[in-house]
């Protein structure tokens, strides 16, 4: 029972950063500028928040500078990708290269292998919800997470509303589906692409803060470990729909939680469990795509 409890708690815990990346990334996906820089942006959020916290000890400054720098990466991405009409995949790769290099460079200059914060502890960030906390099992699973973790789950609803109920969401989708039509309607297509990418950057930055500052109070190199790419896989599986894509993100959370909890009892086999999340995501992606295109009857190769 304790094992099941901790698996469920970890599911919520591991899903949150990926959900954030997913609900931010879907807008860029829908606007037809696939943002594979989510990984680098998330790492930027993780790095800057801990770095600023380490030097200033001011939590507000740490959060705002992390979000601001991530937005700057978003601007760089959109400037090169939208205004400069460069290859977005190559730009994304570039950002995914630069951010970890900056982090390693800085850590090397400081002469440390990772930054861990002394004056603040993980339990400071945990929020215990009053009523739910007292319920037996539910309390131990749902309560005691950090603010951004809750924000991630609330964000699913917010982003669904933005995507389907607001002008902004509709315009972003129009821009992605048929850019010529959008231009002929007089929409500023570039503006919507910029905004979609920036929204993704904002969420990725939050995910990074969640990953490093809130959950562990420390930064280690390459700590995002491909979560940004997993988010992209989840976006593909869910076809860019906020709810569906988030469900796939939670699926990854479950597999990650399983891997972590099972490996405690596995002894020397533990290493192999780390591959479970990646294998599950590939299999799910394959199955979903197969189901989707099963009934498409076009001669030859479909696009």
């Amino acid at each position, binding site marked *: 029972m304790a094992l099941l409890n901790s698996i469920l708690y970890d599911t919520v815990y591991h899903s949150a950063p990926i959900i954030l990346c997913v609900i931010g990334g879907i807008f860029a996906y829908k606007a037809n500028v696939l943002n594979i820089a989510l990984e680098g942006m998330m790492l930027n959020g993780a790095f800057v928040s801990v770095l600023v916290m380490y030097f200033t000890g001011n939590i507000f400054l740490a959060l705002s500078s992390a979000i601001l720098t991530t937005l700057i990466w978003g601007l760089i991405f959109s400037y090169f990708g939208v205004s*400069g009409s460069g290859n977005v995949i190559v730009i994304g790769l*570039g950002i995914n290269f*630069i951010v970890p290099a900056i982090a390693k*460079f800085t850590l090397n*200059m400081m002469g440390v292998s990772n930054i861990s914060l002394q004056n603040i502890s993980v339990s400071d960030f945990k929020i215990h919800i009053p009523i739910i906390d007292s319920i037996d099992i539910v309390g131990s699973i749902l309560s005691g997470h950090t603010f951004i973790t809750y924000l991630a789950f609330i964000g699913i609803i917010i982003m669904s509303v933005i995507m389907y109920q607001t002008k902004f969401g509709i315009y972003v989708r129009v821009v992605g589906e048929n850019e010529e039509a959008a231009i002929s309607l007089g929409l500023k297509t570039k503006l919507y692409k910029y905004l979609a990418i920036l929204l993704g950057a904002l969420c990725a930055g939050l995910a990074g803060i969640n990953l490093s500052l809130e959950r562990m109070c420390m930064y280690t190199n390459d700590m995002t470990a491909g979560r940004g*790419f997993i988010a992209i896989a989840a976006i593909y599986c869910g076809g860019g729909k906020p709810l569906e894509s988030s469900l796939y993100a939670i699926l990854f959370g479950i597999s990650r939680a399983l891997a972590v909890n099972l490996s405690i009892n596995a002894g020397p086999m533990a290493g192999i469990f780390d591959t479970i999340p*990646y294998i599950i995501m590939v299999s799910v*992606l394959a199955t979903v795509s197969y189901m989707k295109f099963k009934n498409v009857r076009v001669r030859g190769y479909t696009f």
Partner: protein
Amino acid sequence: MRNNNETLKHIINSLIPVILAFALGAIIILFTGNNPLYAYWILLKKSLFTSKGFLDTLHYASPLILTGLAIAVTFKANVYNMGVEGQMLLGGFFAGLVGSSISVGNPFIEKFICIIVAIICGMAFAMIPAILKVKCNVNEMVVTLMLNYGVVKVLEFLTTGVFKDKSAGYVATPTINDIAMFSRFGKSRITAFFVIVIIVLIVMYFIMKKTKLGYEITAIGKNPEFAEACGMNVGKKIMVIMLLSGALSGMAGAGWMLSDQFKYTLSFSGNPGLGWDGMLVALLGGHTPIGILVASIFYAALKTGSDSINMYTSVPKEIVALIQGIMILFLAVKFLKEKK
């Protein structure tokens, strides 16, 4: 004449990002309190302007040429095989296992077997995203990226557990047999593997410029719908391209294992790995074989120089990775419009 003009534009489009990246890098070096010109001189002096250093650079460039070609054949067809790193690791790992456990006596056959095994491993890995893309319409980029993480973890598990060399003081697989190793020419690190790489490069040049497959790669890259409509079996061609890419990556891993590393350690391909370096090399070389040759020598010089930069200045060697990232970012944008 017009053709010359295009080549010139091509070269300028590759040079501008390099210059910009070095300029930005110089600003960062200034902030660390060092002289950027001196740092760059250190970076390139040994690796390009001494004969031993230059031969060493050629040695380090050899796997990069192969991974660069592996990326170029797929990127040129707008198929994003990001799994080159994983394919290379897999090839290197199994080449090392075969090289240490099987001994046939003849050094040529021994090396041949190792390389063939690595090529098969690379192709098997590339087969998964290729089949998924063609049969199930799965985005190959996401699959290869995910499988990379998976492969790294699996190899880490195998190296620390099943295949760990008990006699070694650190985590590594057993060292390969002497007959499987490429021997060095003279004092420098360069081996016969470089010669093999140059032969492969010439073959790839021929394939990409003169054969039907090369033409089809370009056609698919420009407009897959049109290629399909013209009667090209695009799905099948994508499989062929991915397999070719996997074979090249696997071979890169085998070569790196047999000519430099001799055993699989967790830092086998360095940081960032040879596959990722290959991506920069391919982009810098404009996806053409000759461009890749030049770019990989240039990049290998940077990489070998990064060790001396740490020794003679107080600039962290991550500056090279930083410059690499900035280069990729600028390479995404074409500064001069090229003819499609």
